[in-house]
């Protein structure tokens, strides 16, 4: 019911036509906990905490809304959460599965606009300015999006709609769960103006304290503060704080499409134990290379350079890179390059705690590619290259549909426990 009220107020107070951009912030509700409840309906209505372990180190990764009245929130030590809400069901959870649902979610979002910026595992910014003509009003589009997520994933989300990323991010948390909130700059000032500055996105307790020292308590105080005074005492953060207070933000929604400006795609992994196992490190490089290559292909990019990052047990971090003779999005090429970049002593004499693979100097596939004398002239190699392209796109199709673990290199399959 709340949703309809918002919609009405939005439609009476907001004039879409004046908006330069329409930005959504889609935020999943208690993501990890909701997935566990979806998978096990018996948990529905119960206080559920995902996290652990239940000892001095464990923290709450996510908690269902039933735990919130007890003052439980994510990031809280699990022991403290249990002392506040002793009936809570604690689930250790499966990060692998959450990652898969997250990729399903991001895939769904790209059906509404190509401009999707995954912001974390369970939130994303969408620039839907170009989708308005197709979907009518932003509220109609948001409702369609929520329905798709509910139908396909059986999960709920809250959506903030505004002209830029800051305001839409602030909007999405105004109503949770299953909310839909529209804010323009006037509503933004009304809703947040009287609140303390710490309510703003990106202003934590520490920075809020710095601001309070200037005699600034509320967002309204910050808006009317002297910009020179702010920057002279807070530095560049002063400019950022003022923009946050005013809800001003020109930053683009950075989708994979617009990643060409970022010029790199990377994945890294920290091992549970520092590794002296060369074969294990090679498998990790292969897995990272495959993920990097897949993202390259999704974005329609070719990498011109491949780099690796290696952190030793003693926290010494090195990077090595190499320019490919021919730009590529093929995991085979990225892996064979990455493997050669790994210095011999790593995994034999030096224990490795982190490995990363980066594809850099990205170029858009199909533009200004250096043509090859041999590939374009010899029928055999052309046939071979075409076959390989077909194979890769078939694997991509299966992985898109059934998840990345549905089809993988035999060397990456884990041996089942005996």
């Amino acid at each position, binding site marked *: 019911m709340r949703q309809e009220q918002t919609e009405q107020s939005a439609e009476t107070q907001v004039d879409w036509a004046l908006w330069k951009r329409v930005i959504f912030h889609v935020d999943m509700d208690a993501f990890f906990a909701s997935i566990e409840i979806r998978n096990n309906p018996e948990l529905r209505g119960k206080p559920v905490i995902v996290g652990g372990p239940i000892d001095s180190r464990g923290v709450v990764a996510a908690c269902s809304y039933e735990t919130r009245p007890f003052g439980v929130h994510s990031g809280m030590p699990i022991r403290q959460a249990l002392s506040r809400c002793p009936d809570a069901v604690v689930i250790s959870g499966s990060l692998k599965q959450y990652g898969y649902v997250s990729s399903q979610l991001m895939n769904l979002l790209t059906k509404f606009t190509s401009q999707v910026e995954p912001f974390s595992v369970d939130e994303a910014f969408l620039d839907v300015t170009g989708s308005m003509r197709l979907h009518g009003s932003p509220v109609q589009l948001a409702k369609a999006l929520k329905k798709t997520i509910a139908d396909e994933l059986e999960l709920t989300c809250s959506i903030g709609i505004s002209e830029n990323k800051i305001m839409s991010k602030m909007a999405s948390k105004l109503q949770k769960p299953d909310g839909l909130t529209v804010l323009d700059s006037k509503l933004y000032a009304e809703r947040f103006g009287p609140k303390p500055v710490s309510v703003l996105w990106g202003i934590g307790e520490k920075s809020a304290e710095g601001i309070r020292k200037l005699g600034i308590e509320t967002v309204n105080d910050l808006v009317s503060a002297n910009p020179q005074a702010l920057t002279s005492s807070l530095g560049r953060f002063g400019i950022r704080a003022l923009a946050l207070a005013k809800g001003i933000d020109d930053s683009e929604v950075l989708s994979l499409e617009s990643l060409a400006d970022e010029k790199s795609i990377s994945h890294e992994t920290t091992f549970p134990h520092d590794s002296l196992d060369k074969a294990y490190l090679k498998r990790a490089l292969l897995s990272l290379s495959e993920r990097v290559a897949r993202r390259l292909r999704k974005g329609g990019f070719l990498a011109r350079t491949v780099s690796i990052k290696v952190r030793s047990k003693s926290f010494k971090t090195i990077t090595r890179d190499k320019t490919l*003779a021919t730009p590529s999005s093929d995991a085979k090429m990225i892996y064979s390059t990455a493997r*050669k970049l790994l210095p011999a002593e790593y995994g034999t004499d030096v224990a490795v705690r982190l490995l990363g693979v980066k594809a850099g100097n990205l170029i858009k596939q199909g533009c*200004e590619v*250096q*043509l090859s*004398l*041999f*590939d374009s*002239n*010899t029928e055999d190699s052309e046939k071979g290259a075409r076959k390989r392209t077909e194979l890769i796109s078939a694997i991509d199709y299966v992985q898109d549909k059934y998840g990345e673990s549905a089809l993988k290199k035999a060397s990456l399959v884990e041996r089942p426990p005996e």
Partner: protein
Amino acid sequence: MKFSVSRSTLAGYLQSVLQVSPSKPALPILSNIMIEALEQKVKISATDLDISITATFECEVSKKGVVAAPARILYDIVRELPESEIKFELSGSKLEMKAPNGTYKIATVEVDDYPTLPAINLKKQIKLAGSELMNMISHTTFACSTDETRPALNGVLWQTKSDRMVMVATDGHRLSRYTVANTKLKGLHDDVIVPPQALNLLTKLMTDTSKEIGIIFGENDLAFNLGDITLTTRLIEGPYPNYDQVIPKQSTKTMRVNREELASAVRRVSILSSALTHQVRFSISGSKLKLSSANADIGGEATETLACDFQGDPIELGYKASYISDILNKVDSEETLFELDSPISAGVIYGADKNKEDYICLIMPLRLAE
């Protein structure tokens, strides 16, 4: 071991063999050189396992022997000594150098640990004109690939079977082929693939190109005999791709343009080319060649128009600037001929006043963005 040699003689030869003594050797022992005192001559050798250089010079040997000693340190000492006879003597495990101004001692290493250098059978050598070899090498090596995934392309293909002796290098994007008449090597050996590093070293060591150079084909290696210095290189395993079939047999368009004018225009225009592709666009029609580039990152654009003699339908294509520059540097004639067909097929470049059979370069375009 005991011998004496003049400082300048030894310094010169040390400098030559040090060309292969790697600064970051694959094995620590490779930072040493081997010194062999034989009957009235001394041999010094260095190797990086792929390429070896040996220098042999006459000198007074009073006691034969062999040691391995740190190459750089030895050279640094010899270079700094004033001109005089230096007396070398092995005392214990130390190599002692006596000059009029003092004595230097350095520790030697176990000779047995030093890699065995390939034996060269000088009886099998065939002599070639130094200038001929020099020309073939200097016109081809630049086009070799550095991509280790296709090892054959890391080398220069040297064909000696037929009436024409051919050297070819390509990285898959551009190709250079130099041929000369072949009488001496004809039919003696199969095609070999030679590392360009060895060939470039050879041209450095070849101080007098009017002299002849001995060629000795081994099973997996190839040696060049310069008289006092021999260079041996491991060969790269084939097969080498069939380059002949990528050389266009005919063309629909030809352009004749002043080489120096084009080379300098490409250098200027490429300053504002894309940092990623370094593309310079060639728009050719009538008697005009327009070069253009654009760099979105810095918001720069450049165009230059040159006069040319062009036959065929107008064409637009993109080239990587350095590929064009490299080739124009090597095609040593006043005017250059381009034989072109389409924006996605190989262009043939050669000197307008030269025989096309002698030296040609191929260049593949960059596919233009829409």
